[in-house]
C-alpha cells in the first residue's frame, strides 16, 4: 500500500468547513503591509480525506501495538492505554499552564507524588521534572555539575569523561554545556577500562557520564571504584538513566555513587514514544546538587485544609540553573508516567527489571545455543544484549542491516543496529518485560531462518524487505538530492490514493 501526499489530494477551494469560523472576520484595522499576500501552501482537502489519509498512513508503521519491537536502548514496552486516557482527562488537558495554583491542585499533587516516587526509585534527594527528553535531562545534569564547581570557585573543571560505548547524546550534551569531551575505552569484558579512567581524571575533570548497565548490555561491576576515582579527582558522576529498566528496584543510582541522574520516562516508565517523542527526561540529584535543580519544581505546604501544592520558581530557587521550557516540561507525559507507576507499585517496579532481565538472558541463551555470537557470552545480559554478526557477514556478505530488513518481512521490528559502534555488525536486542516467551521464541526462530537463508541465498536476504510499503530506500540519494518539502506542482495526479 502506498499513500499519496496530502497535498496531492487537494483541490483549490476544498475545505473542512466545520473546523473554522463560517465567515472570515475582518482585519481591516491591520496595516496592509503586515498582511500575507499569498496564502500558505497548506492542503485543501475535506475532513474525510484527512481522516482517511492519516489513518492509512498510520497503518504503514510498525509499533508496539502491532509488532514485537526489540529495539535496544529504547525499551519498547507496552504503553498502557489507561495512561493515555487518564492523562487526557479534561481537567488536565484543558487547563492553561499559568492557571493559578489554587485551580491546579489535582495536577500539582500528581507531580509532587511523582517527584517522590522518582526519588525513591533513584535514591536521590531532589527531583526536577522539567527536562523534556533524555538529552535535556543530560543537559540539566551537566549544567548542574558545572554550576556546582563554579559555585565552589572550582572554575577550571571543563572536561566531561565519556566511555566510547556511550550514547551520542552524552558527548553532544557535554559540548552544548561548553565542556570538552574525553573519551575512555571499554575493556574486553565490557566494563570501563579503569586504568584509562585513572589516567584522564584530574583538575579539569568536571565529571563522568555513565549508564549502568552500559549500552553494551552488561552491568559495570566496578562502579564503586569508578565513583571513588572520579570523586577523588574532584569530579561528579552523572547517571544516564536510559537503562534504568534493567535495575529498577535492584540497586539505586545513589547507591552506586552517582550524584545526578536523568530518567527517560519514555523508556522505563512506559510513556509512549509517539514516533519520536515527546518524552520526559526528569533529573534527580543528591544533596550536593539539589540547590541547582532546574525550575519549576513542585512544592507542598501543609495548610489547615490539608496539603497545598505550589510551584517553586526563581525567588525560592536562587541557585537553580534556570528554566528549560516555556512552562512545565512535557506535563502530559509526566501524568502518563505517574499513572503507570501507580499501576505498578513498588513490587511491580521491581518485577520490571526482573522480567526484562529474564527475557534478555533467555533470548541471549537461545540465540547462543543456535550458534549466534553474543558480544559478551560470559556475562549476564542486563535488560538487553548484543549479538555480533561479524562471522556471518564475513562468510556470506549478509550484514546486520540485511538481517534488520529481513526481520521486517517476518513481522518483527529490527533490533538496534550498528550501535554501540565498537561491536562490528551488531544487533542490540532489548525484548522488554512485556513480551511473552512465545514471542521471543518466534523472534529467535526468525533470526535462525534468516541466517540459514544467508548461507543458502545471500542475495535473497539482501533483497529484503519485500513486504513493506517500500523496498530498501536509497539513503545516499536522500542526502545528496535533498527533497525536504513538497513543491506545489501543476501535474499533481488526478486520482486518489491507492
Amino acid at each position, binding site marked *: 500500500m502506498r499513500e499519496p501526499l496530502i497535498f496531492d489530494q487537494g483541490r483549490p477551494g476544498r475545505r473542512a468547513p466545520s473546523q473554522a469560523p463560517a465567515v472570515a472576520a475582518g482585519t481591516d484595522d491591520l496595516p496592509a503591509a503586515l498582511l500575507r499576500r499569498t496564502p500558505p501552501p497548506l492542503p485543501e482537502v475535506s475532513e474525510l480525506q484527512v481522516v482517511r489519509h492519516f489513518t492509512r498512513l498510520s497503518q504503514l508503521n510498525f509499533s508496539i501495538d502491532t509488532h514485537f519491537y526489540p529495539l535496544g536502548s529504547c525499551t519498547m514496552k507496552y504503553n498502557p492505554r489507561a495512561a493515555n486516557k487518564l492523562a487526557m482527562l479534561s481537567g488536565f488537558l484543558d487547563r492553561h499552564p499559568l492557571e*493559578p495554583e489554587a485551580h491546579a491542585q489535582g495536577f500539582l499533587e500528581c507531580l509532587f507524588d511523582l517527584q517522590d516516587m522518582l526519588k525513591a526509585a533513584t535514591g536521590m534527594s531532589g527531583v526536577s521534572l522539567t527536562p523534556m527528553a533524555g538529552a535535556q535531562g543530560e543537559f540539566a545534569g551537566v549544567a548542574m555539575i558545572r554550576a556546582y564547581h563554579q559555585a565552589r570557585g572550582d572554575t577550571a573543571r571543563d572536561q566531561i569523561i565519556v566511555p566510547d560505548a556511550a550514547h551520542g547524546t552524552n558527548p553532544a550534551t557535554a559540548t552544548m554545556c561548553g565542556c570538552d569531551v574525553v573519551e575512555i575505552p571499554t575493556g574486553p569484558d565490557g566494563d570501563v577500562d579503569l586504568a584509562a579512567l585513572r589516567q584522564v581524571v584530574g583538575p579539569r575533570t568536571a565529571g563522568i557520564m555513565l549508564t549502568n548497565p552500559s549500552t553494551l548490555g552488561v552491568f559495570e561491576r566496578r562502579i564503586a571504584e569508578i565513583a571513588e576515582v572520579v570523586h577523588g579527582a574532584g569530579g561528579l558522576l552523572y547517571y544516564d538513566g536510559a537503562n534504568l529498566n534493567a535495575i529498577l528496584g535492584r540497586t539505586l543510582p545513589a547507591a552506586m555513587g552517582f550524584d545526578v541522574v536523568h530518567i527517560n520516562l519514555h523508556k522505563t516508565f512506559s510513556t509512549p514514544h509517539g514516533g519520536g*517523542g515527546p518524552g520526559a527526561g526528569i533529573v534527580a540529584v543528591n544533596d550536593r546538587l539539589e540547590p541547582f535543580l532546574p525550575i519549576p519544581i513542585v512544592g507542598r505546604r501543609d495548610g489547615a485544609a490539608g496539603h497545598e501544592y505550589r510551584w517553586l520558581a526563581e525567588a525560592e530557587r536562587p541557585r537553580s540553573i534556570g528554566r528549560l521550557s516555556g512552562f512545565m516540561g512535557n506535563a502530559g507525559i509526566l501524568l502518563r508516567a505517574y499513572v503507570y507507576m501507580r499501576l505498578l507499585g513498588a513490587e511491580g517496579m521491581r518485577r520490571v527489571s526482573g522480567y526484562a*532481565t529474564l527475557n534478555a538472558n533467555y533470548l541471549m541463551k537461545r540465540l547462543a545455543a543456535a550458534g549466534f555470537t553474543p558480544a559478551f557470552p560470559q556475562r549476564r545480559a542486563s535488560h538487553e544484549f548484543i549479538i555480533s554478526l561479524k562471522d556471518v557477514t564475513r562468510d556470506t556478505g549478509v550484514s546486520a542491516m540485511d538481517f534488520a530488513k529481513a526481520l521486517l518481512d517476518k513481522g518483527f521490528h529490527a533490533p538496534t543496529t550498528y550501535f554501540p559502534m565498537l561491536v562490528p555488525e551488531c544487533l542490540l536486542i532489548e525484548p522488554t518485560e512485556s513480551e511473552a516467551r512465545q514471542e521471543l521464541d518466534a523472534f529467535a526462530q526468525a533470526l535462525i531462518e534468516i541466517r540459514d537463508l544467508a548461507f543458502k541465498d545471500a542475495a535473497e536476504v539482501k533483497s529484503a524487505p519485500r513486504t513493506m510499503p517500500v523496498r530498501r530506500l536509497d539513503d545516499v540519494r536522500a542526502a545528496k538530492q535533498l527533497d525536504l518539502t513538497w513543491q506545489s506542482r501543476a501535474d499533481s495526479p488526478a486520482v486518489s490514493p491507492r
Partner: protein
Amino acid sequence: MPFIPHTTEDTAAMLGSIGARTIEDLFDEIPPALRVDGLPGVPVALSEAAVTRLMRERAARNRATLCFLGAGAYEHHIPAAVWEIATRGEFYSAYTPYQAEASQGTLQLIYEYQSMLAGLTGLEVSNASLYDGATAFAEACLMAVRGARQARARRIAVPRYINPVWLKVARTLVEGQNIELVELAATAGRTDLDALASLDGQDFAAVCIPYPNFLGGFEPVDELTNWAHARGMLVIAACNPTALALLKPPGEWGEKGADIACGEGQPLGIPLSSGGAYFGFLTCRKALVRQMPGRLVGGTLDVDGRPGFTLTLQAREQHIRRSKATSNICTNQGLMVTAATIYLSLLGSEGLRRVAAQCHANTVDLVRALASVGGITAPVSPFFHEAVLTLPRPVAPVLQQLAAAGILGGYDLSADFPELGSALLVCATELRTAEDIAAYRSALAGVLGVAVAA
C-alpha cells in the same frame, strides 16, 4: 504482575534454560553492597479501576475557567479528529523512524509537516520539531552562531518585548557556550529603531524578532531585517504560527527575508494540557540546512525506483557526529507533530486564516469592551490576538478576584516589564464569544467597583 505476561511455567522454563535458579540470580553481577530489595518510598500497586478513580478525582480538582490568558499558550479549537487519529497505536507507540521501510507512516507525515511549516514561515527547510517554543528559540540562536558569517560573533540581539520565559530558557541553554543575548532598547511597545545606532561597531551573529511580540504588537520587522542583513547578521523570526496564516511570512521580511524562523507549535492543535507536551518548530533557508539541529526527513527512491521517505542528513545529529553534532537533541516531539499535521490539514490555509482573523477580531472586541470600563487604557498600535491594557490599580489582586469568579483574566506584565505600569496582557482566541467578552467586562467592572451598562 501488571504488564508482564509470564506464567509460572514460563518463568521456570526460562530460568532453567538460562541455568539460573531464581530471577534474583540474574542480578548476581551487581555487587551485593549496592543491592536493594525494594522501593520503600513507592506505594503499592493499584488496579486500573482505582487509578482511574484517583485521576478523575484529581482532574476534577483542577478548576475550569473562562480563558483570556495567552502569554505563550493559546486555547484554540482542536478538531476531534486530531487526537482520535494521533493516538492510534501505530503513531502513539512507534519509535523514532529509524527503520524507514517499517515507518513510512511517520516519515511521510513528518515530510508533510516539514512542507507545511516551511510554507507557513516562507522558508525552505523545516526540521521535524524541537521540544517547545522556548528551546526552539535557543536552538535558533545556537544555529545562527554556527551559521553566522562573522565567525566570532557570539551575541544575539533581542527586542525587549520577547517572551521573558523564552529569554530565560535560552540563557540557560546558550550560556555554557558563552553566547550572550543582548536586549534592544524599546519605545512604545516595540524596538526603538533610532537606538540601534548605538550598537554600531558591536558584533552580533543575529537578531531574533518576535512576531507578534510578547505584548501582542508588531516589531518593525522589515527595518530590523534590513538593518541586520546590512551588518552581516542573520535574522531569526520567533513567530506565532496561527498569525502566519494572516501575516507576511518571515521569508518575505525586508529585502531578503529572515534566515531562520522558530516558534511554539502549541496553537496548531495541541491542547493547553497544563503546559505540555507542546513542540517547537524551526525552519530556515536551504543554505543553513547543515546547521539545522534535530531530525530531517527527505524523499528518496527505493531499489525499485519507487518514492519513499527516510531520515536524512543524520551526520548533523548526535548519534553520528557525537560531540560535534548540531545539537544534543534526540527524542523530539513526534506525536505533537502528528497532531499538528492533522490539524493543519483539516484547517487548510483558508481555515487557518479564518481562525487567525477571528482571534484578531475577538481581541479587538475584547479590548474595546474592557476599555469601556472606567479607568482602563487600551493600546493604540495594532496587535494580533493579545493586547496590553493599563489598569487603574495593581494587576495581581484584580486577576485573583477574577479567577475566583471563574475568569482567567490575562497575564500580569508588571513584574517582567515594570516600565509598563499596571499592565495586563489579555487575549481572545476564536473561541471567545460576545457573551464571554461581556462576562469578562462585567466581572472586571465588579472587581474595579465601576458601574457599567450591561
